[in-house]
């Protein structure tokens, strides 16, 4: 009996570093932020008087931006997850050189940094960019189209291309252990190629698809660099508002409240995505 107790204690002891890291780097700052979001500032000083004013202000002024942020982030996450599945499935189902080439190419794009990708898209979409030059050159349009860059579309393009490799990896990882014989068995029992996907593949990679979705969604919803660099003046996402509260406006409590509102919305969207996937990605 003693032996078991000691063994259990040892095992629990092994968890300490993980809990310390998680708690110190993640939970404590988050809780501190939650507390701060109920304070207010006066003359650049935190006033420790709990109140709901910050949340009331968000309710009246920022529901639009939060909805817009959630919407565009959900769009980015859906597109990224779909593309990630298509590419991962291609890599997985092509056992030959093509699959490895695609996987290699995917990993290679991770080397290009975030800013590099943004600038790459700017050279593609800008006034003097490759797309506009081509359009003008082909006389498809008389003047360059400004709306290519500095638009929500540009934000979607940049973030999807940036997030795609991160989303491919979990999906590919989930596809790899699937036994190809089970796919043939499904075929044998009467499933069309689409039926095989629906019954023998998709239900088994729901966690990975959700990971890809959540990752893309959270990165998009928290991003403020991309909207500023390619989004134009009209594409204001919550990241930009939050950044300005912490920066120029020095209103940390309002910024913290905005952060929490966005976080709650994000959790709601991800939960909805999870329920949706579990409902629709089920075997017959």
């Amino acid at each position: 009996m003693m032996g078991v107790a000691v063994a259990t204690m040892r095992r629990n002891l092994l968890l300490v570093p993980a809990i310390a890291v998680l708690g110190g780097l993640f939970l404590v700052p988050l809780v501190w932020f939650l507390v701060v979001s109920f304070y207010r500032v006066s003359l650049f000083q935190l006033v420790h008087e709990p109140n709901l004013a910050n949340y009331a202000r968000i309710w009246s002024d920022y529901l639009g931006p939060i909805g817009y942020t959630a919407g565009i982030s959900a769009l980015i996450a859906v597109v990224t997850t779909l593309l990630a599945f298509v590419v991962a499935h291609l890599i997985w189902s092509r056992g030959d050189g093509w699959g490895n080439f695609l996987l290699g190419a995917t990993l290679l794009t991770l080397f290009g940094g975030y800013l590099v990708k943004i600038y790459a898209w700017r050279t593609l979409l800008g006034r003097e960019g490759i797309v506009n030059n081509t359009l003008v050159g082909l006389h498809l349009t008389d003047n360059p189209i400004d709306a290519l860059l500095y638009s929500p579309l540009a934000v979607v393009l940049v973030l999807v291309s940036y997030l795609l490799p991160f989303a491919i990896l979990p999906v590919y990882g989930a596809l790899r252990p699937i036994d190809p014989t089970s796919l043939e068995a499904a075929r044998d029992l009467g499933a069309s190629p689409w039926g095989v996907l629906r019954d023998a593949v998709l239900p088994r990679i729901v966690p990975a698809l959700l990971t890809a979705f959540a990752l893309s969604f959270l990165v998009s919803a928290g991003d403020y660099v991309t909207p500023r660099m390619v989004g134009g003046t009209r594409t204001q996402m919550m990241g930009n508002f939050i950044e300005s509260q912490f920066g120029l406006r020095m209103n940390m409590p309002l910024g913290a409240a905005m952060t929490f509102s966005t976080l709650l919305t994000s959790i709601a969207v991800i939960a909805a995505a999870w329920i949706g996937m579990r409902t629709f990605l089920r075997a017959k």
Partner: protein
Amino acid sequence: MLQRAIDSSPHSPITDAVPAGAPLVRLTGVAKDYNGFQAVHPLDMTIERGDFVSILGPSGCGKTTLLRMLGGFITPSQGRIEVDGVDVTALPPEKRATNMVFQGYGLFPHMSVRQNIGYGLRLARTPAREVAERVEEMVDLVQLGAFAERAPTALSGGQQQRVALARALIMRPKVLLLDEPFAALDLKLRKAMQDEMRRLHDAIGGTFVFVTHDQTEAMALANRIAVMEGGHLRQLGTAEEIYLHPANHFVSAFVGEANFVRAMRRNGRVALSNGLTVVSPGEDGDVEIGVRPERLMIGAPAEGADVCLRGSVTERLFLGAHVQYRVLTESGETLVANALEGHFSPGDSLRIGWNLADQWVVAS
């Protein structure tokens, strides 16, 4: 009841159009070429309704390729496959009235045993009530009642095997295809599964094609055995036919053990070393006379045999069920004889012989 159910298979809208007596499966010149490697050479084969056919052959001889062509997973590079009078050569697996038990089982890990078994019926939009009934029928048939709600990953190899079998059988296939289904099981379980397989075939009828490289398994199960070698079909016949009257050297040696004695054929007669000649139609030239070790007689009984030779014992092995002698004949052939008694020792001179009814002649 199951018998009737199999005959009125959902896959067979045109059964009535087929004349009685036509084979259920007919392969005509079927061959498979993998980018220049001929895995299966053009072969003809028919399978009758109710047959339990075993495809037997060494590793790499094309058994799986042949079976997968029947199932629709590999398109033949030439030839024609008919099932019940319908040309299915170009049909994908989901459109064929065949079902397969795969070597690796291929169970769905995200479904329970019951869900696995019922999958094919659900796909076919069978009413839920009927699905449930037939699943229960199958669960009973393969004796999985105690495990029916488990995930397949929580089952032993033999239990998984039975799920795979039930999942295919529930479709009431015109032909059930099995690719070395017991290869991964230990000897004891394998024997038990063979008994179960025989019981199943007796109970529900139907037509089974069973791939194996184990000749005892083939003989224990099948009423007809197709022996393959290097992509060729070497012989198709009952266990007795292929064991007692093998058509060629390969079948003689692959199915059981065989002794070979060289001889010559001239004008349809083969001369034996003791001067006896036997009628044996075929091309003139070198031939081999084959005879099984347990059909060889040694000592006194050999003196009354049709063919009787002198020799001396070079080796004696006690193998439990029998004693195996290696005998060097005066004409210089080494023969292996299995006998029940073991009163000879190495060095003894003796007579060794066999009856003409126990020998066969193949081209060498």
